[in-house]
């Protein structure tokens, strides 16, 4: 059993670490002149962060999640609404789950 004082102290330490990651990016960029080249880099990086989450997560998941992501991508391309895409994706995932996939 972890002592409550130690637990609270550890949570505070981990909070500082996490806060540093949240503030760190903008803090670093405040020392960098944002040229058009840097801005292009940041724009591609922004989409790439999400791609780097989506692709490995999807590949590692069950086939019903592949179908959910594919459905969401199609809906997003057609409607330009990320929210409708998400709802359709979740519905596909739920339907496939209930079909036993």
């Amino acid at each position, binding site marked *: 059993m972890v002592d409550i004082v130690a637990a609270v102290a550890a949570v505070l330490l981990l909070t500082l670490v996490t806060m540093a990651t949240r503030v*760190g990016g*903008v803090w670093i960029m405040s020392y960098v002149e944002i040229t058009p080249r840097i801005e*292009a880099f940041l724009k*591609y990086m922004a989409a790439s962060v999400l791609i780097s989450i989506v692709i490995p997560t999807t590949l590692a998941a069950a086939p019903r999640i592949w179908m959910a992501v594919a459905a969401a991508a199609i809906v997003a391309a057609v409607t330009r609404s*990320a929210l409708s*895409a998400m709802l359709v994706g979740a519905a596909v995932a739920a339907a496939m789950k209930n079909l036993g996939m």
Partner: protein
Amino acid sequence: MAAQTTATESAQRPRFTAKGVWRGCVEIAPIAVFLIPFGIAFGVAASAKNIPPEVSVLMSIAIYAGASQFALLDLWYAPLPLATLALTVLAVNARHILLGAALAPWLLQIPVMRRLGALLWLSDANFAYAMSARERGEIDAGVLFGSGIAMWLIWIASTAVGALAGSFLGDLTRFGFDAVMVTYFAAVVVGQWKGAKDLYPWLAAAAVAVIGTYVLPPGWHIIAGALAGGIVGTWRHG
């Protein structure tokens, strides 16, 4: 005439207003409700590790970063391995540095205290939301703060439910909750597509991230993939 010009300029400059905060809160709500099963799952998992509810709720209040909170559960034993815990949480959350950097051209134009407010509640989901809002012409960074606060409150409340009563709720994936975040992120990515010039940077990001899951410590594949996409994009089109 001069006054008119100033008014037009100020209408287009990045800002941070109460209206934006509220808009962020409302617009993230349909996505934030899907955090509930994950918050409950975290509360349940923490209870299973004999972590008292007040500590797991404190984690959700103070750390507020789901993936890292799940990761630290495996390291939660007496005496607490503080260095390992700190390094694990740093590795899993280091992607925030890149999210923040990507927001810098926007956030560096608003006052420093408000900038901090927008950043302290930064998460993958409200970053994705802010990106798609920006795509629609949003200039008010208050949406980041508002959406962050809304998700934070839901995360805290659902952790508490899971920690106190979670074992009675059963498996929530039958409703498709487990697909919500990944489908939402996928949809935001599709919305960012600007044509064939994006193909190689995106492929680079995907390939490096996938390879990274095999060869890098947990969490770092996201950083490697993000940097790869940024570098290829700048190299070809910067």
